[in-house]
Each structure stands twice: as structure tokens, then as C-alpha cells.
């Protein structure tokens, strides 16, 4: 089964257990039943990280692995992603956070569903949410296959997103040209960049489908992760602000500058 999918893996710093987590993440790419065309690691200019990646044993996927340095100086997740996409040579891409794992069947299913539904621009996996010990917490994205949840079973639409916000785009397989044409992930959107991205795509009539397969294993609130950081630094009022902001910003493709200010009404 041939494919046209790149896996982007953004990483910007070395923490205590980075090497262990990275090894697990890369093993999950190496054991894919259908390999991606390329594994594109987007790193920061951190020297420790460069050394780690230079020495890293990529095993049998060494030949399809490429490491690039994000030269724009912003190492936030959205920026790392957008940079990776700009360097990606395939028609579709997916991404893997270095502290997560991709299910062995994910790329295979991506290929199958891209062929079956060429009109779909974004494919989301059912995400297996677990704690740091790998214990199951819940699924994410699966609700869209339930009866009367969205306008069409399996497809995530704008009205549904207005009602339900907790969708996760980890591991999504995206058409590269649609992604770039419609602004990618916004770097100024803190906390709700996932939500805003999905709202914008659905608003622009890009079909978003949930592939009814467990495609991604996401470790929830890992210590020192981005969302752990948000959990400790963002209060309820600010959370509401970012949700409301996402609901306003999705009309614009442009990544406009936003600063948090307490809403008075």
C-alpha cells in the first residue's frame, strides 16, 4: 500500500524523560503496518536537543527520517507545526507529539480513508486518552459517530462544534494545500488553537471526518506538557476568554495578534 503522508514530530526542548518518550513515539512510527513516506522532526535550535536527535537511533526508519530546524524563532506548538508543514513534501501530513504514540494502524487507515474520501480535508482519529501510566481515561472524537450528534454521522460540522468543544486534533491527517491555503494553526491563539482550527475548517466547508479507529494514544496532562502548563497558569476566566475568542477568530484566516484581557460583560 503506497502512501503520500508525512508524519511531523515537533520537539523544542529536552526534559528529564524526553529521550524515553521520544523513543516510544518513534517506535510507534517504526511499527506502523504501513509506513509513512517521511518522518519529519521539527526541532528548535536548542543544542542539547540537536545532540540528542543527531545521536538518536532511528532504527529501520532512519532512511525516511529528516530533522529540520525551525528557523522562525517561535517554538510554540502551532509555529512548529506550521513550519513542519511548509517543509513537508507530501500531499497529506499528520503529526505526533513526542510524548504520545501513534496506533500501529493509523497510517494504514489514513491511506485507506484518503482514497475512499478524497473530498475530506481533515481526518481525525479516535483518541485513546490515558494517564502517564498508560491507563485508559476516555476516548475523544468518537461521539461524532453517535446518532443525532452531528448533521452527518462521522463528519464534524460547525454547528456541532459550537455545541461541543472537546475535540482533539492530535494525529489528524490533513491535506497540506488546504491547510496552508486556510491559514494553518494560529500561533496567537492560546489554549484553544485546536478548537479555533476546527471551527475555521468547518466554517470554510472543509469536510472533517473522524476515522472510526483508535489512531492515537494521548497522554493527558503530562507534567511539564503544554496543557499541564495551561492547567497551572490559566484560570477559568481566561479559559472562557479563549473559547469565546476562538468563536470569533475562526471567521478570519489571518493569524491576528490577540492579548488576554478580562471581559467585562
Amino acid at each position, binding site marked *: 500500500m503506497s502512501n503520500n503522508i508525512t508524519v511531523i514530530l515537533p520537539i523544542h526542548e529536552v526534559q528529564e524523560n524526553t529521550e524515553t518518550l521520544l523513543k516510544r513515539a518513534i517506535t510507534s512510527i517504526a511499527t506502523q503496518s504501513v509506513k509513512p513516506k517521511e518522518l519529519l522532526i521539527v526541532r528548535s535550535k536548542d543544542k542539547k536537543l540537536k545532540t540528542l536527535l543527531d545521536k538518536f537511533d532511528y532504527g529501520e526508519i532512519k532512511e525516511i527520517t529528516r530533522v529540520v530546524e525551525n528557523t522562525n524563532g517561535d517554538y510554540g506548538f502551532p509555529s512548529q507545526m506550521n513550519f513542519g508543514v511548509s517543509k513537508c513534501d507530501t500531499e497529506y501530513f499528520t503529526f505526533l507529539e513526542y510524548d504520545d504514540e501513534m496506533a500501529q494502524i493509523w497510517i494504514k487507515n489514513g491511506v485507506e480513508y484518503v482514497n475512499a474520501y478524497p473530498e475530506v480535508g481533515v481526518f481525525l482519529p479516535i483518541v485513546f486518552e490515558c494517564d502517564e501510566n498508560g491507563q485508559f481515561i476516555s476516548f475523544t472524537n468518537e461521539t461524532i459517530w453517535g446518532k443525532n450528534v452531528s448533521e452527518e454521522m462521522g463528519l464534524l460540522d460547525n454547528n456541532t462544534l459550537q455545541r461541543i468543544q472537546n475535540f482533539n486534533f492530535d494525529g489528524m491527517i490533513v491535506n497540506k494545500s488546504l491547510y496552508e491555503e486556510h491559514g494553518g494553526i494560529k500561533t496567537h491563539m492560546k489554549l484553544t488553537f485546536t478548537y479555533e482550527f476546527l471551527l475555521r475548517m468547518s466554517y470554510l466547508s472543509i469536510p472533517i471526518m473522524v476515522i*472510526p479507529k483508535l489512531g492515537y494514544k494521548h497522554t493527558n496532562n503530562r507534567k511539564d506538557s503544554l496543557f499541564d502548563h495551561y492547567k497551572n497558569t490559566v484560570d477559568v476566566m481566561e479559559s472562557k476568554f479563549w473559547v469565546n475568542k476562538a468563536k470569533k477568530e475562526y471567521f478570519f484566516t489571518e493569524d491576528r495578534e490577540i492579548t488576554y484581557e478580562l471581559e467585562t460583560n
Partner: protein
Amino acid sequence: MKQTSKFPCKRLVFLQSYEYVFEMLEIGENWQNFGINEVITTNENLKNYIESIFRNLSTEIVPVSIPEYFKENEKPKIPTVALSARDKREVLKIVKIFYQKYPQYQFITFRDMSGLPREEFAKELSKSFLSVWVDELSSFGTFPIESMKCGTPVVGKIPRMVPEWMGAVDENGNLNLNDNGIWTANLNAIPDIIATIVGLYLEDAIPTNLLESMEEYKSKYTEDEMKNSIKEVYNRIFGRRIVELQTIGEKAQEKLNTTPELQIENNKK
């Protein structure tokens, strides 16, 4: 059966379900009492069953056929379970227990397939990743075969009369089930089996032996097989009928030849 017993013709029984064999008969009555000794049925099990009840029957088999529009869907399967049950309460019970025991699988949709037009039925069945069949009184069971042709694995309750495609009882009385579905004698286990299959479906891990065994049935029970069988069976039935009528004619002729008036006339000649 009783009302047509005096009709001047040959009558035969089309037997598709053993459930109704005795429905119109009084205790002690049988089909032969009403001049019926030929039967067309759909499978060997029913043939053996009916011949064990009524002796000296002549039984023919015209196998069931499944239309060609029962085929695999071009798109990947969706997380919907197609349900077919004789007793609708069983369906409801399975669904309720499933959602109660496995709330993480609330996104699985169950679809009662009864009442759908045939082609739409086939289309819906081919979309579903799983089907469930509960029919205690079934004599054959086309639904599981239709499922197999659609590439949809079936979870089924083993009926009282085990269909030929499901398995067979060996000489020691052991039931040997085929791998072409997930067959259980325990109705209460079905929600748990569905949950297991959901888990396998989500991980693309449906057992390959199940899928391979189902594959075999894609070329079985075809319309061509049925048409050929109908030709052969009716040729035999008409052949027997012709012989019967010839025999009747000959006997009648003999009878005529033996009447006193005819004998006198013959003697004059």
C-alpha cells in the same frame, strides 16, 4: 391442505419453516392423510427433519439464493451494528444491556433492519461493521449469509435447528461450529461479544480466520445455483408426474379392457 384435498391435481408442500408444519393439523393427522407426499424444501436439515416426522415423503431441495446486490461496500465500514431478530424485545434488551455495561461505546449505533426495502437493507448491512442475528426458530437463516456476502461479521444465537452453514453435529453428538461467524448458545453473552468485537474493530484486529471463512460464502447460495436447482427439481417432479399419469392412464385402459361390454366387443372383432 384440507380444503384442497379433493382437487383433481398433484399438490406439493413448499416447506421453509418447520415451525408451522403442525399448525393446521389435528393430533394424529399427517400430510399423507390429505394426499400430499411431495415436498420442496430449502436445505438438508429441513429435509431430514420432515422425513423423520412423515414417512414415505419424496423431498426435494431448492437451495436459498441471495441476490447479487448483497455485496461489500466500496467505503470502509462504519461503527453501526445491524440487528435482525424475530422477537423485537430481544433486540431492545441487547442494546440496553450493551449501553449500560459499556458506556464508553455510546457512539456505536444499533440499527433494526426489519421493514427496510431489500436493496436498501443490503446497502445498510454492507455499511455496518457488525451484525447481530437472534432467531431461535429459524430453519435456515438468510440474514447471516447476507451479512457474510456483505463482508459484515455476524454475532448469532445458535437456533434450535443448527443451519447447515453454521456447523454440524458429528456422530458423537458434538456440535462443530464453523468459523464464519461468532456463534453463541447464550443470549445474555451477546452484549459482551459485541463489546469485544467493537474493541477489535477499533484496532483493525477482527480475526482473520473469521474474515476468511466468511469469504467462502461469497460464492455460495447464488441465484444461478438456485435457478439450476429449480430446473433439475422441477424436471424430476414433472418426470415423476408424467410416469404417474401414464400409469393411471394404463390402469384405466386396462380397466376399460376388462369391462364385460368391451370384452364382448373385442371378441366380436
